[in-house]
């Protein structure tokens, strides 16, 4: 098993490396470099070529690509992502608080969403084909078909405009306290939960149905094992493995959702930061956030796969046969 675990970790590191190359290259393929992207047409009119060149040297953009890549990557490993163009603030400072805020929101969402989705998925899977399942499944499909930003906007209209329960826009700063953040995270969390729980419950439902269709469930029934024990002791553990992959997918999708929702509500997270950076064409910030997002996804997938390796007795003792 140890070899399987090591191989899996090695694979993740390999992918992470490729991702960093991809992220770095995305801005290298352009004619011109990061600075050219940053400068607007107006800037180009105003500035002298020598000034632009001086700026370039200042940011170290005149060095060959490989060199810059190595510098960037080695810096990234320690948390140093370079500096912003506009005022040379270290990127890591710019994204630190938003990063934590997004993690908080994500955590809140995950803690609520996963158990709820598991309960809904298992129940609808168990009663598969019958009325409650059909109704809930249809509701779920509607749930994840409506775009996040629509749900968010609708919630704003209902609970901020018509029924003034919550503030429509969040006017909290990035460095606010955890308690304040939690207060304003309720609406964004609900928005994401509605759509993403719907989807996750469908995935978990499929996994549960797969488990219930296994032959050993039939044998257990034919041996007189009570239903409750069949579900909790035989079927549910069997559904965990396909479920882990679904949860990893869920978290990856969560990142997409967070970006949109932070923009809708103005929650001071990494997603909002990203949009601003794209607006201001701060290439280094965008690179840094993208890399972090990829780290999270790769990490989640790694965790899911490692859990499977450790939990599934068939994989665990494969070498012992």
């Amino acid at each position, binding site marked *: 098993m140890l070899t399987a675990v090591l191989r899996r970790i090695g694979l993740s590191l390999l992918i992470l490396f490729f991702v960093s190359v991809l992220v770095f290259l995305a801005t290298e393929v352009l004619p011109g470099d990061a600075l050219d992207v940053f400068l607007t047409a107006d800037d180009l009119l105003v500035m002298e070529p020598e000034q632009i060149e001086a700026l370039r040297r200042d940011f170290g953009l005149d060095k060959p690509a490989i060199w810059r890549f190595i510098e960037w990557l080695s810096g990234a490993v320690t948390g140093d992502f370079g500096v912003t163009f506009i005022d040379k603030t270290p990127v890591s400072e710019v994204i630190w608080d938003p990063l934590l805020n997004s993690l908080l929101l994500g955590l809140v969402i995950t803690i609520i969403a996963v158990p709820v989705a598991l309960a809904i998925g298992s129940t609808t899977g168990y009663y598969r084909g019958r009325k409650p399942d*059909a109704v809930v499944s249809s509701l779920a499909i509607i749930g994840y078909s409506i775009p996040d930003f629509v749900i968010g906007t609708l919630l704003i209209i209902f609970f901020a*405009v018509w029924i003034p329960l919550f503030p429509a826009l969040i006017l909290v700063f990035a460095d606010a306290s955890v308690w304040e953040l939690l207060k304003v995270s309720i609406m964004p969390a609900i928005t994401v939960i509605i759509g993403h729980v719907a989807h996750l419950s469908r995935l978990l439902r499929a996994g549960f149905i797969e488990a219930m269709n296994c032959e050993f469930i039939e044998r257990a029934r034919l041996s007189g094992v009570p239903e409750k024990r069949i579900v909790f002791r035989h079927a549910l553990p069997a559904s965990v493995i396909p479920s882990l992959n679904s949860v990893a997918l869920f978290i990856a999708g969560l990142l997409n959702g967070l970006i949109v929702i932070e923009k809708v509500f103005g929650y001071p997270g990494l997603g909002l930061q990203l949009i601003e950076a794209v607006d201001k064409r701060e290439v280094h910030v965008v690179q840094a956030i993208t890399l972090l997002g990829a780290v999270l996804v790769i990490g989640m997938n790694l965790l899911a796969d490692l859990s499977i390796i450790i939990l599934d007795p068939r994989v665990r003792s494969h070498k012992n046969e």
Partner: protein
Amino acid sequence: MSEKSIISVLTSSPATTIGVLLVTIHLLSALLAPLYVPYGVTELAGPSMLAPGSPGHLLGTDVIGRDYLTRLVIGGRTSIFVAMLGALSAVVIGGLIGVSAAYIGGFYDDAIMRIVDTKLSIPGVLFVALCVVGFGRSIPVLTIVIAINYMPGALRIIRSQALTQVPLDYVKCARLRGESKLAVIIRELCPNVMEVVVVEFALRMSSAILAVSALSFLGLGISPPTPDWGLMVYEGIRQIYIAPWLVLLPAFLISTLVIGLNFATDGLANALGLDAARGLY
């Protein structure tokens, strides 16, 4: 499985029928839009923020004074076009590569799968953000980015299906006849993954529509003055207190299109015996 007629598949459950109906209405309306819109898309046809139901402006006007009905109807066209073309390219190209990877195997397969894993590790919006920062916003860029975004997912799923076919004996027979790799891939394997391909296309298309609207909303997608539902929702938020319909109408249209697509796809997948509940991201 394919003995069922298409009609029976499309009407296999009330949800599926509703879905198919919604999709057909949307597609027809988008296709025929230029024929029946009363005004031009950027035409300043009336006073600003006229309430819906006024004579000459069935759905009122927006902030600047453009007819809302016109903008709404045309607004779907761009998203649907980009989504359809993007999803189609993703599924066709991804599918061919996936089948070839399944058949050829070895280092080629490994390399392709590592590339797939790499791309799948970057969440969609981030990837688009990266590209937009680099390449700017335009319809061609958006279409290509959507295609590239969904290609790895489609590739992986179609490859899985192809992998179930590759060890089968008819593939071995083809090899023994001396058929070229290309012939085996196209003649023997592709027909047997078609069902998965169709479901994948439908799934990707519904994701793509969601993605395009979200991107436009965020300012990374379609740029004004081209009308787009996502963009229109964003533009309408500022007027939420006085003219909520500016947000509600495009939101409703996006939702019904995607709901329709998803109901229809779900029914289609069930009828084909496939599992539609897979990753949409």
